[in-house]
């Protein structure tokens, strides 16, 4: 049931992209997303598409697997397209009843669809090739400078990685409680929205109680193992840049520069 969600879940295989330092992948993903908004011409999108295609190829993750993850966001994509298509003023192409499709609207809709799907595929390349753990490690290290502004970088990273560890456990628990309540005649499916919302109470109350109990236990277990925040802490797997990471930064810089040039000259 709930365990079938695969959007952006880590895909275990061996590839250059998998081996890259998570910081490189984080920076690259941000750069790629920004580049999608930098370029405004079709040439730019072609360049972005080529860049993305090469990354997917290098990642060794089957393209089919990536598309499967896309299914979850098809709905959002459709809404965006529809809104842009009908609500952009300009030169009318087709007019049905009170709805008009304009030339500008069509252009914008296609552009948004391309941007959005590139954005999602681009970020899923990162999540598919990086374990959640090294991702949080990378974030922690990248955001370290923010500590000056009293941002609790380590704590946030720790919370994220604990959340990731407990998601499967809580999903399983949800499944179990749901079944237990169904066995007592509960009905989670039929009825209108209000009834459905009401039907969630027997599921959510036990789930929250359990989550709090687990949080409490975990905090105690962490303290018992000498956890006292980020200070004095060493790392079992410290992040270190290798030659391949520096090369990757080079490629990234070249791509980004190209995007800016396209924006200026084309």
């Amino acid at each position, binding site marked *: 049931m709930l365990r079938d969600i695969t959007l952006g879940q880590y895909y275990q295989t061996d590839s250059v992209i998998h081996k890259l330092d998570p910081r490189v992948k984080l920076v690259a993903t941000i750069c790629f997303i920004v580049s999608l908004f930098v370029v405004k011409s079709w040439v730019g999108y072609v360049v972005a598409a080529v860049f993305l295609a090469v990354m997917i190829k290098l990642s060794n993750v089957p393209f089919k697997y990536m598309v499967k993850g896309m299914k979850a966001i098809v709905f959002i994509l459709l809404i965006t397209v529809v809104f842009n298509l009908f609500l952009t003023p300009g030169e009318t192409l087709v007019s049905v009843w009170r709805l008009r499709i304009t030339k500008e609207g069509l252009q914008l809709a296609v552009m948004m669809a391309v941007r959005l799907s590139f954005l999602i595929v681009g970020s899923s390349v990162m999540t598919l090739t990086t374990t959640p753990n090294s991702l949080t490690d990378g974030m922690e290290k990248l955001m370290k400078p923010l500590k000056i502004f009293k941002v609790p970088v380590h704590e946030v990273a720790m919370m994220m990685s604990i959340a990731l560890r407990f998601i499967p456990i809580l999903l399983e628990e949800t499944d*179990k409680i749901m*079944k237990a309540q169904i*066995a*007592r*005649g509960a*009905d989670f499916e039929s009825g209108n929205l209000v009834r459905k919302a009401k039907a969630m*109470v027997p599921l959510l109350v*036990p789930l929250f109680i359990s989550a709090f109990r687990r949080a409490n236990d975990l905090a105690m277990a962490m303290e018992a193992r000498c956890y006292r925040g980020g200070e004095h802490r060493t790392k079992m797997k410290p992040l270190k840049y290798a030659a391949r990471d520096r090369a990757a930064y080079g490629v990234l810089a070249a791509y980004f520069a190209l995007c800016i040039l396209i924006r200026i000259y084309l």
Partner: protein
Amino acid sequence: MSIILDHVNYVYGGDTALAVHALKDINLVIPDGQFIGLIGHTGSGKSTLVQHLNGLLKPTEGSIYYNGEDIHASDYDKKKLRSKVGLVFQYPEHQLFEIDVFSDVCFGPKNLGLSRKETELRAYAALKQVGLQDEYFYQSPFDLSGGQKRRVAIAGVLAMKPDVLILDEPTAGLDPRGRDEILDQIAKLKEETGITVILVSHSMEDVAKYVERIIVMNRGSVMYDGAPKEVFAHYRELEEVGLAAPQVTYIMRALRESGMPVAADATTIGEARDEILKALGKE
């Protein structure tokens, strides 16, 4: 009136390489009024099996009949089935959610669409059946002790007046006295109401004292099915799959092998004591 499982197979993980064959060709008849122990270690398929009995899981292949009707027929009323085949999950106290004990037990009958009066009558009767004192009825279920919470959760299922009561590891995490109390209560309930009871457990010693039939599950198949004495006679095979007959079985075998004229098939302490006393001529 019975439950029949006909060539039931269950595979999860679907079409992927990770598919797990959790149940393999299960054929069972569970007649009315039996007291059954379903034994197997973690991952043997026993929990998966019981979730089939009330239609929570649908077999990949095969059929399940309750009172002669296929429970997965399109016009079959699953909700009614679930009230007739009551399933108490492992650590059932984790499903409690109401503000007081009594309301929580009312949840089941209320879902069946019964009148308020009938709902409350049933809740009251169920709480009495599990031996909970009146003083706890209007307390928050979360303020009770572990054993009491578990009783409330069992009452929550009993209040639906099931004909078959399935309990998945009802004693997990309880201390020895708590365990005996719950099991004694279930045995008493069985005696008074005559309903079918299926006790899922990984402890032979716990169930040997109570049940009349033992079904041993291993790797998704039924390994043994019979009276406790018959099943425990295979103690060597049981040991090989990580289960063990009650300690007394071993003692009686060893005594016999060293020349004492005792019947080796005693399964409870009482039986063993009587046998030994007889052999020693003290009876």
